[in-house]
């Protein structure tokens, strides 16, 4: 198995050449959803998954004001990878609604963020939209909206997304995806991957039981690599501060 690339970003580091701080937004918010009428540049609106926000986003999508909705619920949203594929090489003015709180799977939330002693996995699509596709980010919570201009520091974007999740935690039962947030915990992620590894390992051992003529060296090799995976992951090393 090929090892994953591990990159460490500290508060000092940024993927963007322009380090800019988030600003309180001048855009008016209607409850937790911004007024999109005055948005003039490509913008990604990050909102919590509540019934009113879903209704508002789908209504604006129907009118053509919102171009895409990113989320994990196929009933009204599209996966981040599909949206990013659509954006490649196609300039234009777009407004995308991002339900970041739905992006909890290992595929959608690959960044391990450490904040105030707590670790959780966050999504990367907001960073890609902002840094690679020139989107403004508008992170909306009940407490107001935070605006991040294109090319904002990666840490600022992740912190804004993290703060948005924390703020959503105060909404109680109105926050429809609170239960799914457990998937961001490193412990849950580790447990899920362990189960996945063991299911695969079981299928390999079952195959060899059924087909004893299978190449023993190849079986040994796969078996050894799977056993290595069970070992606790080594702490990630600080290999670089990205600038």
């Amino acid at each position, binding site marked *: *198995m*090929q*090892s*994953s*690339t*591990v*990159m*460490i*970003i*500290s*508060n000092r580091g940024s993927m963007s050449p322009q380090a800019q701080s988030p600003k309180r937004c001048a855009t008016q918010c209607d409850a937790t959803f911004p007024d999109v009428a005055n948005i003039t540049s490509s913008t990604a609106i990050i909102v919590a998954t509540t019934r009113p926000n879903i209704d508002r986003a789908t209504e604006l999508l129907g009118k053509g004001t919102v171009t895409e909705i990113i989320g994990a619920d196929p009933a009204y949203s599209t996966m981040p990878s599909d949206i990013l594929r659509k954006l490649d090489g196609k300039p234009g003015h777009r407004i995308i609604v991002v339900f970041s709180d739905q992006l909890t*799977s*290992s*595929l959608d939330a*690959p*960044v*391990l*963020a*450490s*904040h*105030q002693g707590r670790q959780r*996995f*966050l999504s990367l699509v907001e960073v890609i939209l902002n840094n690679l596709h020139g989107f403004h980010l508008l992170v909306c919570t009940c407490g107001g909206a935070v605006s991040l201009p294109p090319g904002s520091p990666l*840490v600022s974007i*992740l*912190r804004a997304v*993290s703060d948005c999740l924390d703020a959503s935690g105060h909404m109680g039962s109105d926050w429809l995806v609170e239960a799914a947030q457990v998937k961001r915990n490193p412990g849950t*992620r*580790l*447990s*899920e*991957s*362990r*189960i*996945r*590894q*063991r*299911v*695969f*390992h*079981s*299928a*390999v*051992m*079952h*195959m060899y*039981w059924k087909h*004893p*003529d*299978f*190449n023993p060296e*190849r*079986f*040994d090799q*796969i*078996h050894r*690599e799977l056993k290595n*995976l069970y070992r606790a*992951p080594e702490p*990630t090393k600080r290999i670089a501060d990205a600038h």
Partner: protein
Amino acid sequence: MHISEALEIRQHTPKNTFRHTIRVEQRLGLTLSDREREAIYSACQVSGFGLDTYYRWYRQKSAISSKLAHLDHHSILQAIHCIDRSDYSSINEKLPNDRGVVIALPHHGHYILAAVRLMEHIRHLRNVHILYGDPRDHAGNDLFDDLYRRLFDRAGCRAGIIHSNGRGIAKALRALKNGEAIIMMPDVHRHREETYCIPFLGRPLDIMLGTAAMARKTGSCILPVVSVVDAALQATTVFGDTVEPTLRRAAPSSDVSDYWTTLDIFQFFERAMGPQIIYWQYVRQHFLKKSEFPIFYPSTMDEAWHMFSKDHRSNPKPVLTAYLD
């Protein structure tokens, strides 16, 4: 109905075919979600029964449990003999004289009564113990402790209980090395991430390899045993052929050998339990599963390994770590 035919019946049966009433379930103290009821219905179809049979079985199990709780030593044994009339003397020729034996008994049929009768019979031949989770961590296991105190807890009885904690496992290993018998229930686990899985009645079943490992480490054999139930809900205990963990073809490591041994044990369980799977304690959870066990072939192994090793979900390491403080 053959298992293969029954397995083809899918779970999505129209709800209006259920002959249950909520009142029946309430009277039984049985709380089922719609999905759980569908799962049990699906299992009933595999066994060729209706839901009414499941309800009848549930009622009988509850009645036996509450009755056993109030009987004295003699009355318990008498009651158990009324329900489980198996001839346990046939086990004698299956037990090796020169080494230990692990008796693998799943939570099927009247398995508690079978365990009592096994202990009652085997204790005249050799020391016998039953290994199960400590009641402090496993709700409901105090029933076994209580039964033991009333039935076997006396000097010279040669029947004992062992709780499956660190000290208990060590005691069980010593007992097996001394040629004693240990009754274990191999269809249960606590932490899913420590399990492997096997194909069982068309679905993946999470299992621990402990039964096979204990037998291998002590040079013991494994005797798979199932309590089967007839139409009158009377029990008969059926015995499989002994499984020899040490006589396996060259396995590259002990866990592969233990996995293969476990497959052998559960092949017998599938044959014995499959036609009447509704009498299995874990039937509800098992038939709730929608996934299938992944079957690989030598020709597809490399492709499967490639896909698995490239999949983010297979490796918990993050692609990026960020410190936001």
